[in-house]
């Protein structure tokens, strides 16, 4: 499996660390809304198909990335810096 880092280009998955589901919405740290915290910690879409994920290029430039991966085929559909900016489309 190759992930195309927007900075480094295509690299083997071994250089990357999975940082979790990219759909989570973290409540404000002071929030007392237990349902919102419960959803943040436990609720996952778990789709059989395209999935928004956060990865870190930990063995390369160390940037945090937004990655769309197909959970059935492991195809990487797109990658982008998590803090915004350049997006790389991978699906041809």
């Amino acid at each position, binding site marked *: 499996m190759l992930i195309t880092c*927007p900075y*480094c*280009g295509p*690299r083997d998955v*071994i*250089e990357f660390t999975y940082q979790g589901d990219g759909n989570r919405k973290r409540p404000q740290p002071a929030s007392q809304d237990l349902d919102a915290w419960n959803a943040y910690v436990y609720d996952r879409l778990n789709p059989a198909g395209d999935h928004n994920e956060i990865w870190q290029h930990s*063995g*390369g*430039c*160390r940037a945090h990335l937004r990655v769309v991966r197909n959970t059935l085929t492991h195809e990487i559909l797109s990658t982008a810096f998590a803090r915004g900016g350049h997006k790389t489309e991978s699906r041809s």
Partner: protein
Amino acid sequence: MAEHQLPERQSPLEPEYHPGSHGNFEHGVDVILSETRPGSILQLAAWPGEEKRLIEAIRKVTGLGLPDGAGGGVSNGVRAAFGFAPGKFTVVDEAEGLAAAFAGAITPAIGTLTDLSHGRTPIRIAGPKAEWVMAKFFAIDFALPAFPLGAGRSTNHHDIFAQIQRSGADQFDIYVFRSFARSFWKALCHASEEVGYEVH
């Protein structure tokens, strides 16, 4: 006032650093391994949006003009600079004292400067089989069109993080953590045995 005397720096490779020809060199030496021992190795990081000002500061202090683009770099044999991550650059000088030269140029509004002169060990591999040996270590493309002269790459060999600059058509400088340098050096020597190598 007497000039401040810096202590002589010891090489972490020393117990395993054996100048001469090694391995399968009867039919020729195809790579040369050496430790470049620069006086200064700096890491410069720009805050988001301040990258251009940081690149301009590098040009002012070192005279090195960094090309645009991810991993862009330049090397003139005495000084070298390359991008290794978004907004981050490694800058190297044969002479000591580069951090002091940058002190006024990198303001807190532009970014940060970290002096890694004692924290990284640069190892140079040169020769017609340099690409071949490097390709056994790192899963990146070392061909000249994919990895141009002066360019930098961040990658790793197992858990040894490496920043690599192409400092010649068949020459690479590998920056590894000092504490891992001897282990990496031994592995590099073993990997070079089949092509015949010389330690300078």
